[in-house]
């Protein structure tokens, strides 16, 4: 399409091409799933919610699988992945982005330690049980220390809880910080709000819990095991609560923008009524929040009928995951579709085959599921799920 048709009104010359593509949409999306999955697991690890226990370790593995690909959208977008480490060698502290490498690494260490401690008993048992390369693998994972006495495991648990207490703020920090990268851009009225980190965080928790529900259902279905309804509905309950917080904050932002009606309101109105109308009102708010909200209320008030309720939770979770993706899209792409002149708009046209295309985005989004599958072969978290059922 000719570029003239993608532009309305007056824009600055360097705005005609939208630089932050679908890959940059994936970046906060994947980071959000990480933070959400971790916080879901800490419902058990820190707050001691026993009903979450069957999926707590699985949630940690999910967080790790997504965390390992969290930097990939950025590295693919920028090219030259071998230079990525330079952000840590010489961080330029006037840029918000310079902290990402450190925050990411710190969080990675926390997640790794957390997983290691919660799986250590299994690792040691496997190391003693297996022969050959498997023994070597599990022994190295156990760091050749095989103490799994009652006291040792108890100490581990105490330490893991302390770690998770550090972990929650750092998960919140990791994702809130991604929100800050957008929220701190003063030139862009659609992004620049101090609410942005907390909005990102809430939608991250929402998407993380929804993803965990979907993965739990898929895993149960693939393993042909019965679903623990108590866990499922409890997750659904948390999803509902965080959904309310999420929508309240998102609406608060829009409503205060509308009420204040600053100079940028005209272009924001145009953005919402024209450029991202479908993805904002249609996908993000209606499909992503309103429909799951109603479905989840029904799930909570309905008695029995477990099959139907499970289906409703599954549909809600799918819609939430899509809705949060739409939210990231509306922020990242929407913010670039309005000109900084405040009197023109651009249009983003995704391409399929290119470095910035939909294809690499799909590959990056599929990758964590493959990593998760591999992880569950090395460290099977199923024992918790099955134990509760008996």
């Amino acid at each position, binding site marked *: 399409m000719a570029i003239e048709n993608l532009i309305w009104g007056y824009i600055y010359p360097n705005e005609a091409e939208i630089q932050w593509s679908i890959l940059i949409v994936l970046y906060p999306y994947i980071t959000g799933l990480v933070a959400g999955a971790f916080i879901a697991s800490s419902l058990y690890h820190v707050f001691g919610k026993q009903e979450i226990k069957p999926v707590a370790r699985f949630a940690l593995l999910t967080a790790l699988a997504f965390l390992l690909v969290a930097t990939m959208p950025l590295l693919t977008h920028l090219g030259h992945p071998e230079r990525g480490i330079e952000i840590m060698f010489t961080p330029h502290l006037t840029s918000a982005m310079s902290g990402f490498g450190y925050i990411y690494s710190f969080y990675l260490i926390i997640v790794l330690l957390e997983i290691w401690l919660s799986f250590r008993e299994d690792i040691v048992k496997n190391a003693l049980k297996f022969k050959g390369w498997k023994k070597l693998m599990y022994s190295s994972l156990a*760091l050749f220390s095989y103490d799994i006495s009652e006291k*040792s495991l108890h*100490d581990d648990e105490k330490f893991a809880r302390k770690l998770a207490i550090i972990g929650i703020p750092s998960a919140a920090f990791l994702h809130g910080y991604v929100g800050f990268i957008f929220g701190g851009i003063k030139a862009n009225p659609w992004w620049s709000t101090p609410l942005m980190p907390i909005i990102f965080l809430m939608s991250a928790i929402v998407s993380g819990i929804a993803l965990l529900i979907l993965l739990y259902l898929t895993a149960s279905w693939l393993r042909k095991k019965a679903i623990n309804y108590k866990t499922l509905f409890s997750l659904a309950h948390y999803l509902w609560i965080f959904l309310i917080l999420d929508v309240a904050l998102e609406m608060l932002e829009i409503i205060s923008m509308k009420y204040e009606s600053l100079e940028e309101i005209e272009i924001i109105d145009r953005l919402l009524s024209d450029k991202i109308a479908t993805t904002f009102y249609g996908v993000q708010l209606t499909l992503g929040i309103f429909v799951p909200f109603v479905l989840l209320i029904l799930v909570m008030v309905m008695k029995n009928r477990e099959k139907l309720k499970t289906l409703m939770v599954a549909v809600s979770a799918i819609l939430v995951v899509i809705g949060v993706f739409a939210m990231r899209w509306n922020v990242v792409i929407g913010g670039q579709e309005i000109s900084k002149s405040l009197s023109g708009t651009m249009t983003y046209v995704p391409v399929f085959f290119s470095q910035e295309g939909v294809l690499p985005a799909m590959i990056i989004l599929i990758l964590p599921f493959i990593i998760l599958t591999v992880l569950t072969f090395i460290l099977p978290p199923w024992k918790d799920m099955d134990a509760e059922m008996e």
Partner: protein
Amino acid sequence: MQPHLKRAFIILILVIIGFLFVRSFIVPGSFGQYGWYRGDSVAELRELPVGYAGSASCSDVNCHNSVYTIWVNSSHKTVNCETCHGPSQNHVTDTRTMPTPANDTREFCGMCHFKRTARPADFPQIDPDTHGENLQCTYCHNPHKPWFL
């Protein structure tokens, strides 16, 4: 502290030391000397051979003075000789070395003159699909004095 935790922390400390060690020889010594870049690069760039001689060096009476006089009063006067004719320092020091032939493709002229939304409306622009029947621009236009057809 339990032995396995001790080992885990030793590994963590080793990773951090490893990071600092790698950093110490990957980040150049002169980094940050003047700003957020390698200070030595300033001296290195200064030592690079000069490629461009500047438009004024073409104006010598014994050289290209006539075409220079036409160009210097034309609307192309902001486009330097070497923009189209290429770097000419070698040619200026030794006239037997010829510079690369001037780039006179449509695409090259189009870098400034193909229609773009972002260009000022009164800047001369053409639609390459409808203008000039795919002939070279210089077939009709004189690049040294554009409106001198």
